[in-house]
């Protein structure tokens, strides 16, 4: 497992497509989770949002897609712009119509609907004729053949990975120009992870779709992303081109699990106490 250094060195030259400016988020009126997060996604780029558990990645994505309201979270400061327009007051529906879709963490399939119906709801905002709909479905099935096999099963009875695929496929059905992906690789078999990221790259290059992805699988994420942000405790602690991050010593050590001596076996970890330098 060597780092893919072939990933293009990204330069953030183009106008930000999505920009998040200094947002602050509080849950339940008392739990301050984001403490001034700013980030940009240029058009046609893939941006990775990295960070430990509880850093606030999901919260950031939910803030952008305005799904926070349903979780009793409040944005107390800052704003979000998409295609030059302020979007923090829009409804999710309006956002999807403008081309911004989200794949939520933890799958969130419609359990009682079949896989196929789940996918079809994804196309809700588009007015498609029957053949067009079929085409869109076929495209998703092409990406995820496993879904085709299980198309008639209720999503609630499919395996974790199948649900994850379903959630991603569902977002693709909306034909978005920008996708917020929250941990797409979670619970997915490794070769499918590669496939999913392949799809991401594909969409990005062929259809110019931009991505903001929250990922724990740092190595894969940085391999495919152009740019990355690292979030810790509700703050951005590091940002830079993906290749730069991938070669950063700290990132290597804490997010990629490789230290100077190359990759450490997981078996070693038990004798291994670490500390993040920037938190010290």
């Amino acid at each position, binding site marked *: 497992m060597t780092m893919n250094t072939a990933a293009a060195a990204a330069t953030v030259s183009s106008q930000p497509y999505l920009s998040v400016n200094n947002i602050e988020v*509080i849950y*339940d*009126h*008392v739990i*301050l989770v984001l403490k001034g997060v700013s980030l940009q996604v240029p058009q046609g780029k893939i941006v990775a949002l990295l960070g430990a558990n509880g850093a606030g990645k999901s919260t950031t994505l939910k803030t952008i897609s305005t799904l926070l309201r349903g979780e*009793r979270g409040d944005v107390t400061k800052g704003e979000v712009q998409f295609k030059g327009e302020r979007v923090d007051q829009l409804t999710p529906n309006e956002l999807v119509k403008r081309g911004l879709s989200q794949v939520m963490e933890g799958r969130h399939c419609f359990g009682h609907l079949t896989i196929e119906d789940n996918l079809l709801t994804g196309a809700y905002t588009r007015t498609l004729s029957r053949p067009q709909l079929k085409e869109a479905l076929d495209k998703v099935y092409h990406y995820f053949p496993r879904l085709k096999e299980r198309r008639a099963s209720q999503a609630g009875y499919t395996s974790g990975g199948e649900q994850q695929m379903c959630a991603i496929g569902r977002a693709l059905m909306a034909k978005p120009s920008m996708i917020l992906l929250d941990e797409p690789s979670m619970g997915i078999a490794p070769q499918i992870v590669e496939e999913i990221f392949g799809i991401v790259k594909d969409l990005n290059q062929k259809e110019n779709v931009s991505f903001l992805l929250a990922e724990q699988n740092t190595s894969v994420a940085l391999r495919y992303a152009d740019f990355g942000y690292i979030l810790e405790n509700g703050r951005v602690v590091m940002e830079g081109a993906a290749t730069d991050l991938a070669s950063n010593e700290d990132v290597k050590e804490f997010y990629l699990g490789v230290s100077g001596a190359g990759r450490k076996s997981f078996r070693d970890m038990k004798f291994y106490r670490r500390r993040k330098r920037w938190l010290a």
Partner: protein
Amino acid sequence: MFYREAGQFKTSYQADNQIFPIRQDRIALGALLVVALALAPVLASPYTLSAILIPFLIFSLAALGLNILTGYAGQLSLGTAAFMAVGAFGAYNFVQRIPGMPILLAFVLGGLSAALVGVAFGLPSLRIRGFYLAAATLATQFFVLWCLTKIPYLTNYSSSGVITAQKITILGYEFDSPASKYLLVLAVVAVMALLAKNMIRSNVGRSWMAVRDMDVAAEVIGFRLMRTKLLAFAVSSFYCGVAGALYAFAYLGTVEPEAYNLDLSFRILFMIIIGGVGSVLGSFLGAAFIVLLPVFLNVLAHGLALPTSVASNLELMVFGALIVFFLIVEPHGLARLWQIGKEKLRLWPFPH
């Protein structure tokens, strides 16, 4: 600045397992008990005692019972009033038929009868969940009331099915003034609330909550669903039964089975939802809300000198609107609102 736990270190798990781990809370509760026990009977008017405080306490107890079942064990029930009725008519019959029956024992036996009925009607909960179960518990409601009107033995052959609760006498002392009744009710409710709180913080309580939150996982961990659910039904019905007995003996005096109708079940349910599902404090806050708000609105409407029918309808509308309003502000009820308030107070004067 005054509400801080800083500096209060706990050196044993014993101390940390206390019901109120924060010293200020303990002081506040102590003060409240002093007021309730010593000052209220003296200072409060008979009206406050017998028309506000007594029903408030009784409803709190019933709400607590329902909260055990619905809030902690997650079994939605609409049969609360039926269990109260069983408790009341049970206690009445025990006093009536067994000479020299001590009244408190009769309350307990009434509660146990309710628990028995609760277990019987709790059996379906092993298979049925959610709103299905709620609708099914209506069977309890209608069936119990039907039995009470149909079986003359239960009402001591009173021609109309009305019973008159016997006088409350304990060790020769007669509880007939509002203040004495209030103290009795307060004592019963306080003790039972304490017991409930103890159950909830021990393994029984955790078993209930586990079943509520995810019954399959609870089973995998080794809780036995049947036992846990039926115990919740039994304990909950026991509480409701005692509340029902108090409702008859210490509050209404003469009751017909109709006094325990579906309406009452709903009122108790409102109490726990408004107060906080799964919170002992919430049962009390909710009862206070449902008992006091209409009174308050009624007084207010009179103050405004509106025509009575307009006032009455407005009252109902405001009541409904306030329920919705509170749910929007805090879906987890008044208890949660209180908690958030406390958390803010802890942080005060720093914003976060």
